[in-house]
């Protein structure tokens, strides 16, 4: 009874942790409450359930803490998506292992179904997250990887997995369950490989939902209500985020995940050399310093160059000159949902200055300057105007409708999605080539001179 009560309190803490995220003010307290709930649940489980192997369990927990805490403390904010993918993967693996260990003959059908589901989903989540990690860490190519006959292969793995799942239910064979685990691992790999670099955020959030569901299913296996509630909460949040991301990209989910199979090769643009207008730091400083309103559209490139602080200083300086400045944050800017907000918060940019698409676009035509720093795809007019573009349908910042555009870029290389951007050749656009941090620092000095 008291054990169930402790689990109930823990579940409430998790719920409040998610609830706290509805405003940045209570978010941190909420997260701490969630951690407290987790501690309560773990201690309860240990005192109540660790009849055998207590010392070994403690040792494993200590070891996990020794590995997990330093990794989480030292990770750079730009690398958060990889870290989340990795933590997600180990969670999925843990769920699969729990179900594997708990599997035995007999039991109710529903129990066996839950076991099979936990193993399968957990395995998919584990291997899928590892591939996602490899893509984000750029250990492997960020481009979609389509194996020869990839589609047939993927469908084959799905069919084999389902067949094995049914076979396990029918026979309760441990060997078949192990085979199912392997099939699940292959399925996870086959599922994430064809997902393109820019779509990886969707894959992470979907895998997050998967792990949640695997944990919920393991709750059936162990008849533990806390696991069911917590796993379901995560499953719901992952599903919802995935849907929001798909909306932010303006494409149906199926197209994002399986698009690489059907996508025609993007037609090569006319080979003629086109000219871009490249400006000096002084030109841009004058453009900015005498504007009335400026919107800054930051992308992942800004964070890679560690230029968030320089950007914030420039904004304060411009505001000091009476100019209205805001940041336009695209939902998929960065490498996971909301990533750019975290990166700017790290540089002490107050969150009130962070504006979304719907807040910025209506006023775009009256913006004097749109300053694009290290972003590319989220301002690509092709997404709006060219039905043939691979990103067609993705809502973008209409910076081409501002009076002037300044594009800060390292080179003419296309963005993460590997798509050419017409905006670079627009007559309104001034290019400022160079490292974002370096350029922003020079701009800062030049604006001070005005």
């Amino acid at each position, binding site marked *: 009874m008291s054990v169930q009560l402790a689990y109930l309190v823990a579940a409430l803490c998790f719920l409040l942790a998610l609830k706290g995220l509805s405003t940045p003010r209570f978010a941190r307290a909420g997260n701490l409450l*969630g951690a407290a709930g987790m501690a309560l649940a773990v201690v309860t489980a240990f005192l109540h359930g660790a009849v055998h192997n207590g010392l070994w369990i403690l040792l494993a927990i200590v070891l996990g803490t020794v590995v997990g805490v330093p990794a989480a403390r030292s990770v750079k904010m730009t690398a958060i998506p990889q870290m989340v993918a990795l933590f997600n993967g180990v969670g999925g693996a843990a769920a699969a292992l729990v179900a594997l260990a708990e599997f035995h003959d007999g039991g109710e059908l529903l129990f066996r179904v839950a076991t099979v589901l936990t193993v399968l989903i957990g395995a998919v989540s584990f291997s899928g997250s590892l591939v996602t990690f490899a893509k984000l860490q750029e250990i492997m190519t960020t481009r979609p990887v389509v194996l020869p006959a990839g589609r047939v292969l993927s469908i084959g793995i799905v069919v084999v997995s389902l067949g094995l799942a049914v076979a396990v239910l029918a026979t309760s064979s441990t060997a078949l369950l192990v085979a199912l685990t392997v099939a699940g691992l292959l399925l996870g790999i086959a599922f994430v490989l064809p997902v393109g670099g820019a779509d990886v955020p969707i894959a992470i959030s979907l895998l997050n939902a998967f792990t949640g569901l695997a944990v919920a299913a393991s709750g059936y296996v162990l008849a533990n209500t806390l696991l069911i509630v917590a796993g379901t909460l995560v499953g719901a949040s992952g599903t919802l985020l995935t849907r929001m991301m798909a909306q932010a990209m303006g494409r149906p989910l199926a197209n994002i995940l399986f698009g690489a199979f059907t996508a025609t090769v993007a037609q090569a643009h006319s080979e003629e050399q086109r000219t871009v207008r490249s400006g000096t730091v002084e030109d841009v400083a004058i453009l900015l310093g005498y504007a009335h309103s400026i919107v800054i559209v930051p992308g992942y490139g800004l964070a890679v160059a560690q230029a968030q602080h320089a950007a914030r200083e420039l904004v304060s300086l411009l505001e000091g000159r009476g100019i209205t400045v805001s940041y336009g944050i695209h939902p998929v800017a960065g490498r996971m949902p909301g990533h750019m907000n975290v990166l700017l918060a790290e540089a002490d940019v107050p969150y009130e200055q962070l504006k979304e698409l719907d807040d910025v676009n209506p006023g775009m035509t009256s913006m004097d300057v749109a300053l694009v720093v290290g972003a590319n795809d989220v301002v690509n007019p092709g997404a709006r105007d060219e039905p043939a573009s691979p990103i067609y349908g993705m809502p973008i910042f209409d910076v081409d409708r501002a009076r002037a555009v300044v594009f800060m870029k390292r080179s003419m290389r296309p963005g993460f999605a590997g798509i050419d951007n017409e905006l670079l050749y627009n007559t309104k656009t001034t290019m400022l080539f160079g490292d974002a941090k370096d350029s922003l620092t020079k701009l800062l000095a030049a604006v001070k001179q005005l």
Partner: protein
Amino acid sequence: MIDLLTIFVLAAFVGFEVVSKVSTILHTPLMSGANAIHGVILVGAILITGAAESGVQVVLGLLAVFLATVNVVGGFVVTDRMLEMFKGHKR
């Protein structure tokens, strides 16, 4: 068994309700916070290891305890680091 299904359905509804109100600014912490929460599988891992009868079960269980701990502590610490940075105007 139907009790557990009831819990699942209700939790799904509550989850959708709560998460749909999360501020878009906080989507990354939401994901990493949710990530930490599914580390609750640690509870399951402790329970099966504590009741394990065979050597294989103990090994699988302990591995699960280790991985789940990494998930839990890593998830909460990373989320806390992120949320610490979200401050409003100091004026």
